[in-house]
């Protein structure tokens, strides 16, 4: 009799304990979800603040200093000390080296991506993957140092020009966008269903015909994204370009001419720009322009991926 009572009591105690545990677990769950959500919100706050800050600082040139957007974008004269704020030389410089990087590094990167996805035997791929990761990891300032000590003297020897200029910057950027283009184009090709390869080969096509006529078209949206993100990497690159481009704030006349780009001019001049000066406002407008280009590229990526679906 007494023993039974004790058992019941213990069972009751156990069940309330279990319930307590379950309640505690659920409470923890709710707290955890709230915290996770808050941390995710940090991303939204961060990009929001970034856009807000740069929009305010980047438009002072137009609202406070009453310069026109047209002068900023299309005037070739950059001389904020004398009131001229044309950023055209840097816009042209940035576009030129980015275009060079995409034209040279793009196809090369896609080719290596194709190699990884279609040709590479497993052990070769296993050896090369880490190599590509090291290429990503090398700091951009070290790429710049390589350009400065290896590439610039080479160009100088080959052309008798000073060596610093658009060509050197373009070559450095071509190399720097490689990992992005390689990795993304490999992913894009791997995403193509195996049946398409099998179908093509069964029709008697060679591997190259299959790659060129079937796989590349099928992966075209992914390859486009690879190139767009390569552009994004190139247009914002600062340190490597600054060390080799020559830094002349004038319109470049040829590939061998010393030039300057949007990010490099910011890094050159911001240190000496007094708060509230015309120079500082111009540099922030250039930063805002870079941000707008980056955002446009992200929208382009979205658009490319959506149009596939």
């Amino acid at each position, binding site marked *: 009799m007494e023993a039974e009572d004790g058992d019941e009591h213990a069972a009751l105690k156990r069940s309330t304990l279990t319930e307590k545990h379950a309640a505690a*677990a659920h409470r*923890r*769950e709710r707290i*955890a*979800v709230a915290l996770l*959500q808050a*941390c*995710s*919100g*940090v*991303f*939204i706050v*961060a*990009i929001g*603040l*970034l856009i807000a*800050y*740069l929009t305010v*600082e980047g438009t002072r040139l137009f609202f406070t200093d009453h310069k026109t957007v047209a002068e900023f974008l299309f005037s070739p004269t950059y001389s904020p000390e004398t009131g001229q704020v044309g950023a055209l030389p840097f816009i042209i410089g940035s576009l030129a080296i980015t275009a060079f990087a995409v034209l040279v590094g793009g196809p*090369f990167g896609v080719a*290596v991506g194709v*190699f*990884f996805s*279609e*040709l*590479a035997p497993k052990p070769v791929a296993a050896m*090369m993957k880490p*190599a590509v*990761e*090291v290429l990503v*990891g090398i*700091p*951009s*300032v*070290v790429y710049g140092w*390589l350009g*400065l*000590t290896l590439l610039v003297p080479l160009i100088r020897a080959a052309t008798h020009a000073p060596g610093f200029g658009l060509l050197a910057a373009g070559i450095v950027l071509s190399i720097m966008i*490689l990992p992005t283009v390689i990795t993304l184009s490999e992913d894009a090709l791997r995403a193509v269903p195996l049946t398409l390869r099998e179908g093509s080969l069964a029709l008697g096509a*060679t*591997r*190259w015909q299959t790659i060129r006529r079937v796989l590349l078209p099928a992966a075209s949206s992914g390859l486009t994204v690879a190139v767009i993100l390569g552009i994004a990497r190139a*247009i*914002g690159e*600062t340190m490597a370009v*600054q*060390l080799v481009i020559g830094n002349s704030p004038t319109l470049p006349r040829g590939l061998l001419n010393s030039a300057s780009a949007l*990010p490099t001019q*910011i*890094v050159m001049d911001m*240190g000496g720009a007094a*708060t509230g000066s015309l120079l500082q406002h111009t540099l922030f407008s250039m*930063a805002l322009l*870079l*941000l707008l280009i*980056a*955002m446009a590229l*992200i929208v382009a*990526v*979205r658009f490319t991926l959506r149009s596939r679906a």
Partner: protein
Amino acid sequence: MNAMIERGFARRRFMDAVATVALWTAAIAVIAMLLLFVGYLFYLGAGSVSWHFLTGFPSELQAGGGVGPEIFNSFYILILTLIFTLPIALAAGIYLQEYATTGWFRALVQFSAESLATVPSIVMGLFGLLVFVQTLHWGFSALSGALTLTVLNLPSLMRVAQEALATVPRTYREASTALGATKWQTITRGVLPSAIGPLTTGIVLISGRIFGETAALIFTAGTSVSHGASAYDFNPFHTAETLAVHLWYTHSEALIPDVDRVGNGSAVVLLAVVLLFNIAARVVGRGLTLRFTGKAV
């Protein structure tokens, strides 16, 4: 007719062979390039790196300066950055991968992350200058630099977390839920330990990138080492030039006569650290995966 078909066949075979050779060449060129860079930098830097260079103080006017405080600052800012970034990025990665798998909030976070990831690091540096250096009055400091790098690296670390979680089979989650575990218990005790390998690999690889970041630090952490009591300064509010910034700054602005020696030495130290991080990422990731899941990768 037969001859024509055969000619076409031969041409296609020939083109295929040409393409095969070309693609192999492109791939080998990438490896050759990397080996050239690494070999060349070690060759350049060999003469510059000495114990004195690695631990000595930088010099402002005379030759013979070292980079001790810069190396210290690079690691210090890296650690600060990881302390800020990891919890937020991991939490956001878990939230997007395990909880909010659809919906507008997820889409907005994802879009924000992608946008942040494409912001050029110089623009991020100016953002850090505006927010941390000026608005919050923290000046050029280790803290301003680390927080700027936090914003810069949040997206890539979140991606690492998402991808690591995606490697864990769904059956693990189902088994855990079937045992009565809550979702949070499932994640912390089942899913995260199984994902620890790829997670660690990704974190260490990104650490290498944080170590070498330059453009975002010039206007946030500053271009000189601390002038406090010691140049090895833990005070997060003191200026903290890193090794990568030093490499750029000595070349562009400094007055020392041995710019090449300091530059070559700094470049090779940066490269060596990045290589070490890459090797460590692989070894540690593999070891942890084996330990926590019993799977050899």
